């Protein structure tokens, strides 16, 4: 996040900006509302109603759109998109629309509370913030005194803006290396792939506005992308806002909304995108449709080559031509050869073209996640779509005020050197985190016993249940503190809950991501906290003050708001407040070979040359692994054991489980937002429930009727769901939506049962392992069978 880059590239620049896109949309006719709501008076006085529009930043998905919240008499009553926000330009997705149901949810935890009975018993006592913080400080101080500061761990989910550094700083100053991000379940794959090929450590951004051909490999562009609204409006623009209509092709085992709304859906056997991407590469290379100049001048490892020590190595070209022939790829992926050839041809000849990778390897990460992502990104290099208009561009970040230096005392220095709990950097050399590995390591007491665990926006019991292992791990840690806002399944096993305010009640910030250009979005309270809750940022600052010493000194701010103001003081604060965001609105594409180019290719390499060459053959991997075979440095595809159809497992559990976020699903809040539940499953018209999609073929074979209740059973567990016979699914795959089955008991609707759990959690079916090198989660695809209840 801190890779703030200067925008002073001198070379030939091409620029476009948000205003231009905005203007184009006005031409296309949808700008009406944008212009109009911009004119809304900020405060009006109509009758006795005191009305205001307050700008803040959404946190219901990783996009971070700008919101205009209508506040009447101190109550937030309606959310709109902020028309002055570059990401969403006045519109707002359905999750954003339901933000108020989060804010005013009856399921929220209203005071700090401590578990009085056994953990998980549900006997809680409400206590004051002072009491709660004292408890925490006593514990932390005690552990630090005993030289066990490293035995404190903090697991976190999505953290926004400065929060990530605040957390890292806190833990580092306190003396623990154990800040464990959930990233290894999600965005880690794309980030690693970018780094190992292109040499930059960021998540890719796709310039859909200018693309003529968009090919998504499972990435659910129109439902769950990380700049959701940006990509939605860009796709609309690509279709109807400009003279030439672009084409969107979605490759996925399940016909998601992206597939439905794409110009073409290419069904594929689950987990085999890597092979398809390589097969397409082979077609493109074979027919000489690739960008020969770009590949020759700005890539590495395309042809077979000799290294400095005159060892010969295989290049990408000969690998794909030899190993990824149409017939073989078709056999692996189940996509007909003519479709592969046609789509590959279209991709290469309708430039600018861009191949979109999923940010999440998800449940299908069958151990191939990294190489799949490398293969997909290789397609972008083949057609010269690296930092080009209509291709993959890079997210830039604004220059903010330097963090004040702070000194580590001896305790902190000692703690910092300890091995990480999750094995990142040790067990998994390339990993930034290995979230799913934590429960097992805690249970094994490896590398040392954990004495205290903090959960921040995080719910391992739900995400990686691993057959009860996560619960056991929590139970084994003597002191567990959760910042949960609702009684999620992990918080239920905590000792202490320090309830977090929701994003509508706190100060904070968010980086603008997904546009390329640098920017910051401001988060500010739209209403007074509804309950006796605090922002986790403020709580950490408070804890630091109470701990004092070097920890206290690392945090010279009185409040999180002050911290934000301080960090963002380089920006035009007035503009930030008035518009709800600040950004440069201009993206400069780097011309290959120009000075700016080295900033987009190779910048973050550690062990490989920063020579502005895109690595088909990953020199970074080569340096790290010193491998015997070239294959491990080239994008390739190994058929995972779970996919082979002749093992005993595959006969007993004939179906492959696909899950994939829905647009109607909000990562953290699914359990408690009624309106999301009431529009949950669009294709099958399912509300307030989980369903399992089975193909027509499978339904016939198993004599399953639409609407029937069934068990979906994997070797480790089973869950119930309602059958939906769906034409849009790979015949031997089944789909379960993620995000359901939360234990934040929902009591919605008339006379509904007191504690109703909505739907089922598909993660229960999965055994989460880790990729040996990257620490990324290996989650399947789980094999399942289905039978009536």
């Amino acid at each position, binding site marked *: 996040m801190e890779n703030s880059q200067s925008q002073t590239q001198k070379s030939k620049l091409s620029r476009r900006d948000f205003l231009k896109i905005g203007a184009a*949309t006005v031409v296309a*006719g*949808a*700008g*009406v*509302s944008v*212009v109009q709501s911009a004119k809304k008076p900020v405060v009006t006085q*109509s009758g006795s*109603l005191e009305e205001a529009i307050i700008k803040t930043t959404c946190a219901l998905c990783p996009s971070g759109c700008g919101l205009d919240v209508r506040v*009447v*008499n101190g109550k*937030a*009553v*309606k*959310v709109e*998109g902020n028309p002055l926000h570059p990401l*969403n330009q*006045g*519109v*707002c*997705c*359905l999750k954003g*629309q*339901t933000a*108020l*149901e989060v804010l*005013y949810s*009856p399921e*929220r935890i209203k005071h700090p509370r401590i578990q009085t009975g056994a953990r998980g018993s549900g006997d809680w006592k409400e206590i004051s913030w002072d009491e709660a913080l004292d408890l925490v400080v006593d514990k932390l101080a005690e552990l630090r005194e005993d030289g066990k500061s490293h035995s404190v761990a903090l697991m976190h989910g999505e953290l926004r803006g400065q929060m990530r550094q605040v957390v890292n700083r806190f833990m580092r100053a306190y003396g623990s290396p154990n800040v464990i991000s959930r990233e290894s379940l999600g965005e880690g794959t794309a980030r690693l792939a970018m780094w190992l090929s292109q040499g930059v450590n960021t998540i890719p951004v796709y310039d859909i506005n200018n693309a003529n051909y968009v090919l998504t490999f499972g990435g659910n562009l*129109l439902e769950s992308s990380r700049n959701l609204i940006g990509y*939605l*409006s860009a*796709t*609309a623009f690509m*279709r*109807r806002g400009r003279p030439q209509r672009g084409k969107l092709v979605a490759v996925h085992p399940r*016909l998601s*909304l992206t597939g*439905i*709304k794409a110009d073409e*859906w290419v*069904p594929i056997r689950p987990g085999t995108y890597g092979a398809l991407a390589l097969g397409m590469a082979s077609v493109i290379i074979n027919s000489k449709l690739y960008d020969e100049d770009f590949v020759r001048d700005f890539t590495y490892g395309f042809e077979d080559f000799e290294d400095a020590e005159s060892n010969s190595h295989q290049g990408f070209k000969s690998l794909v031509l030899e190993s990824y022939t149409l017939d073989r790829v078709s056999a692996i992926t189940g996509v007909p050869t003519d479709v592969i050839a046609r789509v590959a041809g279209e991709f290469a000849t309708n430039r600018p073209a861009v191949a979109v990778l999923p940010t999440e390897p998800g449940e299908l990460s069958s151990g191939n996640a990294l190489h799949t992502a490398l293969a997909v990104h290789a397609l972008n290099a083949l057609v010269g779509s690296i930092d080009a208009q209509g291709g993959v561009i890079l997210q830039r970040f604004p220059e903010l005020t330097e963090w004040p230096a702070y000194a580590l005392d001896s305790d902190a220095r000692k703690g910092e050197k300890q091995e990480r709990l999750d094995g990142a950097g040790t067990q998994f050399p390339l990993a930034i985190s290995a979230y799913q590995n934590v429960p097992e390591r805690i249970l094994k007491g490896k590398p040392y016993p954990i004495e205290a665990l903090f959960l921040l926006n995080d719910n391992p019991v739900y995400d990686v249940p691993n057959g009860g292992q996560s619960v056991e791990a929590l139970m084994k840690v003597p002191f567990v503190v959760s910042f949960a806002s609702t009684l999620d399944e992990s918080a239920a096993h905590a000792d202490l809950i320090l309830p977090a305010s929701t994003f509508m009640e706190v100060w904070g910030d968010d980086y603008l991501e997904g546009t390329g250009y640098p920017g910051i979005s401001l988060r500010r309270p739209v209403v007074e906290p*509804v309950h006796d809750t605090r922002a986790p940022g403020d709580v950490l600052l408070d804890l630091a003050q109470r701990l004092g010493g070097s920890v206290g000194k690392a945090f010279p701010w009185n409040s999180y708001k002050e911290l934000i103001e301080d960090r963002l003081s380089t920006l035009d604060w007035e503009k930030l407040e008035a518009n709800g965001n600040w950004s440069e609105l201009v993206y400069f594409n780097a011309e290959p070979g120009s000075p700016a180019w080295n900033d987009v290719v190779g910048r973050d390499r550690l062990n490989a040359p920063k020579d502005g060459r895109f690595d088909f053959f990953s020199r970074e991997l080569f340096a790290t692994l010193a491998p015997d075979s070239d294959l491990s440095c080239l994008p390739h595809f190994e058929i995972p054991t779970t996919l082979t159809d002749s093992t005993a497992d595959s006969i007993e559990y004939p179906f492959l489980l696909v899950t994939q976020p829905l*647009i109607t699903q909000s990562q953290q809040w699914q359990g408690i937002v*009624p*309106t999301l539940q*009431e*529009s949950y499953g*669009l*294709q099958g018209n399912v*509300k*307030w429930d989980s369903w399992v999609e089975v193909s*027509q073929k499978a339904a016939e074979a198993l004599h399953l009727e639409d609407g029937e209740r069934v068990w979906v059973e994997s070797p480790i567990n089973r869950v119930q769901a309602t059958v939906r016979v*769906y*034409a*849009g699914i790979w*015949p031997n795959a089944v789909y379960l939506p993620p995000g359901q089955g939360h234990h934040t008991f929902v009591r*919605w*609707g*008339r006379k509904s049962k007191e504690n109703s759990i909505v739907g089922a959690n598909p993660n229960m079916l999965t055994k989460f392992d880790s990729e040996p090198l990257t620490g990324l989660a290996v989650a399947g695809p789980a094999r399942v069978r289905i039978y009536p209840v």
Partner: protein
Amino acid sequence: MLRWGMVIDLDKCFACQSCTAACRMENNTPVAGKDQADMGRAILWNEVLPFVEGEYPNVHTTILPRPCMHCDEPSCVKVCPVQATFMNEEGTVLVNYDRCIGCRMCTVACPYAVRYFNWYAPEWPDALKEHLNPDPEVAPRPKGVVEKCTFCVQRLRKAREEAEAEGRTFNATDYTPACVETCTGRARYFGDLNDPNSLVSKLSHSPRAFRMFEELGTHPKVYYLKQG
């Protein structure tokens, strides 16, 4: 005379259902809950309807966001025995919740299935009542009456008041319903169909334009633009 109408471009609609949610949050339609939703009693004035056709792998799915069509020849108005549902001078079809006797003739007669009945008195958990829109037009409807999309009349009233307060003449583009304002694909257009220069009236004459069940003679004022 103004004649409000809407155009929805199916090529730019991505089935995101933001319109559905925006409509609920703006118009205070109650949460139905699982049992009621399972009976089809969820009240979503602007449902997004999927029409899945074909067999694997040649599946063709049409997604249709469906507000009230505000028909010029509305079946609902025709059959209402007490004139509880009516068309106002600007062509918007509304329901007088104080007069409706709950006979549900209109729900049965509307070919577009856009009318919803309050089977029970609407309910929210107390905490959630905080976020209800305080505009008087959208006060929660009592049990036993029919309700539906109103083209967000409260917004029209407010836009007019605002124009008046600012001493300017009201302009058709001052008024945007909630679903149009939030539409992520910018697929929805709203405006005066009587003004030949308005965007909606131009789009309604596009060769891609069509209306649902045109053959029924209801003359909807909601137009769709074909996909592709």
